[in-house]
Every structure is written in C-alpha cells, then in structure tokens.
C-alpha cells in the first residue's frame, strides 16, 4: 500500500492536522486575539481526538484488513455499551442483552471479516431482531415491550450494523485497484465525515439563521447543512483520485450524500441525548464526549457510502 496516492493522502491530512495544531496552540497562548477561549479550547480538544483517531487508524491499516475489522468491532462494542447504558432497560432485558453483547456483535464482525455480505447484511436486522423479541418475551416481562425491544434494536443497528459497513469497504473488489486502494477508500469516508462535521459548524456559525429543530439541537441550521454538503462535495471532487472507483462527479455526489447522512446521524443522537437529559455519551477521550459522540455521523454515512462504492465499482452484489 506504499503507492504514491496513499502517501499523498496521508501526508496531506497529517500536514493539515499539524498546521491546525500549531494554530490552536498559538491561539491558546495568546488569549488577547478576541476569540472565545472556550471555542479555542473545544478546537484544541477536537484536534487531540483527531490525532488519536489518525494514530489508531494508521496502526490498524498497517496491521491489515483483519486488524481493521477487529478495531471497528471493538469501537462498535464500546459504542453499544454507551448506548445501552444511557437507555433505561428493565431486568427482563438482561439475558437478551447478554447475547447481544457477547454473541451477536462479535459474530457479526466475524461475518464481515469473512466477507459474507449475503449473511451479514441480514444477520442483525433479521435474526438478532427476532431473537431479542423472543428472548424478552420468554423473560416474562411484558411492560412497554415494544419500546424496550426497539431500543435494543436501534442500538444494534446504529452502533454495530451500520458502523460495520466502514471496514466492509476493504472487501469490495475494485477493478485495477490494490488493497491500498480500499484502505484509501475507508480513509476517504472518515475524512469526508469529519470535514462535513466541521463545515456544518463553520457554516452554521457564519450564515446560520434557520434552526432545523431548536428543541433537538441549538446549533444545527439548514444553512449549515447545505453549506456542509456543498463544501464536502467540493472536497470529495478535488480528492477523487484518492478513492479508486470514483469519477470526480461520482466522488462529489458521494461527498454530498455523506455530509447529509452525517448531519442526520448527529441530529438523531442529539435527539436521544436530549431525551435522556445528557450532553455526551461518555468520558473516554477527553473533550470528545463519548465514542458514540464521535462516530454517530460515520455510522449513518457508512452504509450509503458502501453501496455507492459497490454501484460505481460496477461490482453489483457479489
């Protein structure tokens, strides 16, 4: 995977991160520039999170496909932990949850690792759902039955099923591309999602007038959504050479859709957090809230990006 495109992409991202870090540290040491110190602090903490994300991803890429699948499996496991912790469950859900954590989640990632698209695409949405419904019924507690089973299912779909489409990108056969090409594709997706997140913030700050849903999020605006989708489409078009099967217009379309989906993911998680009366999902990475706060956009964007890649790669379903 040491071809010129991979090096260019990684060097570009590391360079940008380095410049941003220097600016962040400069602003921190010169609080007299008239910038909000809290915003500078948030910026620096975000940067720190990205450095961690980059380091972990680079290590996984270096170790290969299996290591990357395992890494995403662990992230899913932790995100699901945060999700279920925040969701009130009853004692009747305990055994169902045990199997969800220790059987369904690991087995799903094994299927992803084995590239069994035909099985893993239905395993959680169909079989895990049926199991959870039946197991909770067997436990004999029917209070708010549909509500409880829906919570577990939503957690599984968002934290495990959707996220697993990101490492599954490594398995799509692409004509004329090496495995390095697939790794670039995954990196491309994560880069676009993070960029869309930032652009959403910037456009909302600069032009934001109309809130999408004031009760759910006090800083996500329609202007931010459109601005972020357009900027992300532009970035994707400029970086089209990094993502193997895409023509520039296809990359732009993928960027646009990824930004929309990422925004939707942020809104959804925001709604859940509002309902539970919390700000963040956890405390693992300082300033980055929980794991789930960081990956919500990736979870929503990964499946559609996967299927667009499949479509444009002309692979169809394998």
């Amino acid at each position, binding site marked *: 995977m040491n071809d010129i495109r991979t090096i260019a992409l990684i060097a570009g991202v590391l360079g940008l991160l380095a410049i941003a870090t220097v600016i962040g540290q400069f602003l921190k040491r010169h609080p007299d520039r008239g910038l909000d110190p809290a915003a500078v602090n948030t910026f620096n903490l975000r940067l720190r999170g990205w450095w961690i994300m980059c380091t972990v991803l680079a290590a996984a890429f270096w170790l290969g496909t299996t290591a990357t699948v395992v890494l995403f499996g662990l992230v899913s496991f932790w995100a699901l*932990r*945060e999700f279920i912790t925040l969701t009130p469950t009853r004692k009747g859900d*305990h*055994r169902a949850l045990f199997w969800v954590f220790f059987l369904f989640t690991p087995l799903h990632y094994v299927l992803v690792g084995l590239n069994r698209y035909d099985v893993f695409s239905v395993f959680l949405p169909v079989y895990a759902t049926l199991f959870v419904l039946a197991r909770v019924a067997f436990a004999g507690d029917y209070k708010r039955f549909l509500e409880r089973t829906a919570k577990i299912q939503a957690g599984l779909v968002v934290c495990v099923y959707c996220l697993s489409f990101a490492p599954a990108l490594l398995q799509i056969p692409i004509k004329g591309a090496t495995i390095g090409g697939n790794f670039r594709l995954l990196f491309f997706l994560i880069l676009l999602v993070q960029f869309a997140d930032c652009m959403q913030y910037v456009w909302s700050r600069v032009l934001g007038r109309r809130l999408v849903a004031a009760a759910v999020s006090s800083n996500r605006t329609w202007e931010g959504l459109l601005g972020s989708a357009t900027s992300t489409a532009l970035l994707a078009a400029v970086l089209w050479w990094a993502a193997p099967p895409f023509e520039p217009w296809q990359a732009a379309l993928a960027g646009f859709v990824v930004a929309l989906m990422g925004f939707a993911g942020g809104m959804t998680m925001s709604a859940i957090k509002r309902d539970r009366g919390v700000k963040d999902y956890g405390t693992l990475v300082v300033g980055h809230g929980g794991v789930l706060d960081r990956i919500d956009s990736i979870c929503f964007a990964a499946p559609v990006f996967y299927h667009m890649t499949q479509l444009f790669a002309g692979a169809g379903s394998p």
Partner: protein
Amino acid sequence: MPKLAVMLSPADMPPAPATGAGTAEGPSLVCRAAGLSLAALARLLSGSSVRWIASQPDTCQRVYFANHTSHLDAIVIWSSLPQTVRELTRPVAAKDYWQRGLVRRWLAEEVFNAILIDRTDIKVHQSPVDLMLREIGVTKSLIVFPEGSRSVTGEIGEFKSGLYYLARKRPDIELVPVHIDNLNRVLPRGEFLPVPLLSCISFGPPLWLERGEAKADFLDRARRAVIALKE
C-alpha cells in the same frame, strides 16, 4: 474539618490474629498477580469511571461505605482504588456467599483479603464490628455496605447500625461515602452473567461521628452523604 480523634497506639488495639494473608511477608506472588488481573478485569467489565469529589485517595485508615446493588460492588470499589491503597483495603463480605466453593473462598481469603462476616449467626461476644476492628489493626481500611444486603428496588435503604459502632469505637478513622451507579444493571440480583454496561463510582469527602450525635441522626447523615454523590 478537624479530626476529633485520639490517635490509638498499636498497644491499645487487641492483637490481630495471624491469618494466612496479610502477615509479615504479605500475599504471595500468585495472589498479587491474580489481584492485579482481577482488578483490571473488573474495571474493564464494569467500565467504571471513578470520581473523587472533594476527596483524595489516601493510605490513611478509612472505612469506605457504599450503597449495595450487586455482587460486583466490593470488587469494583476495591479495584477503583489506586494500587497502594488497594493493598491496605479489605472488603467486608457475607460468609454464606463467599465461602461456597473453592474458587470463591480462595478469591475472598487470599486475593481480596476479605473479612467474612457470618450474617446468620451474630453473637454478642463476637460482634461483627469487633471482628472488623480486630482484623484491620491500625493500618488497614475497610469497605462496608451498611444497608446489609443488596437493594431490590434500586433505592438506597436504611443503614444498619454497624457503621455507627465502628465510628464510636474508632473515632480516628475517616468514613468515606461511596456511591455506586449502574452496577445493578451490569449484574442484577439473581443473574450470573454480566452485561458490560458503563458504571460510575463516586468517592465523597470523609465524615466523622460528631460529639454526642445520636445513632439515628448519624446513620441518616451518612446515608444522605451517599445519596448526595448521585447528583
């Protein structure tokens, strides 16, 4: 807050009985390794974040008292203490549960160095409080659950009077309130397989028995100190 304590010299204390663990040479290497790995496993499984609120870890003699929600409580509190403190801290546990089976017994006696209390057979001349005080001597700390047994509803129940007698007999020991959140969902009553949710252990500022404070008032104050950590 000033300590209203008279420091006890070792001579004032009844001699500590020579139990297997905690003698001059300390626990064996195997037990220490088992202790370290179990502490790591407990932390990993319970995903516990540890908060010290207006309080600091310290090797001075303390009684950590907590709400009781799960069989994991004692292990998780024990594992959330820094290692130097952990080695000096002994959980108080129910004999009927921890003496069943060889593994449990070995864990309780050798690894956690627990003080096992017979809940079914409490005698006047061998009260649990005297036993605890004799076992900890003038260096060790205790983890106790003043509710006596695990809460069924999730509410924190009334405290039993043991904590009061501990405080009265040893006014120099710091009483540290501990609140355990969410562990009852990790391993509820009557379940044996854990679900790895995230829990939170909060240590609060120490308190002492005030001069002339009535038993009921003190126990109520201690209970409210635990509830206050819930936020």
